[in-house]
């Protein structure tokens, strides 16, 4: 994950408190989804950025997950996300996030 974005996430967590935050991803594949999720849960896995060794334990979801789709008004979701749900490998992305979440439970 971009180092500036890691810093911004760290600052947002300090400002708002991690108990009030949710992270929502739009990554295009399972690998990048897992990498981003891992970063906001356990810290930067590459040990390169400000989140190296920082365990934020933030709840993290992908915008293609059913729980997210169901929370958004249908027409809005279709307009903003719709086609990407058909293009991206949703099952692999969801599985990758479930694997990251399972490790921290």
């Amino acid at each position, binding site marked *: 994950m971009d180092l500036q974005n890691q810093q911004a996430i760290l600052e*947002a967590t300090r*400002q708002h408190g991690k108990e009030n*935050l949710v992270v929502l991803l*739009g990554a295009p594949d399972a690998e*990048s989804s897992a990498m981003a999720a891992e970063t906001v849960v356990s810290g930067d896995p590459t040990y390169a950025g400000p989140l190296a060794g920082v365990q934020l334990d933030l709840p993290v979801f992908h915008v293609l997950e059913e*729980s997210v789709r169901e929370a958004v008004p249908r027409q809005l979701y279709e307009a*903003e996300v719709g086609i990407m749900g058909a293009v991206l490998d949703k099952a692999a992305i969801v599985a990758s996030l479930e694997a990251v979440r399972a490790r921290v439970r």
Partner: protein
Amino acid sequence: MFDGKKVIVLGERDGVAAPAIAACVRGAGGQVVLAVTECFA
């Protein structure tokens, strides 16, 4: 799920960009506190 929550949006250019995700969050009653779109080109 997002009602009353503060949300960090991490979009990606080759997937779903941050503005689209942020619109969904707001529509679901969440507050976007950070929205960035990563690009790995």
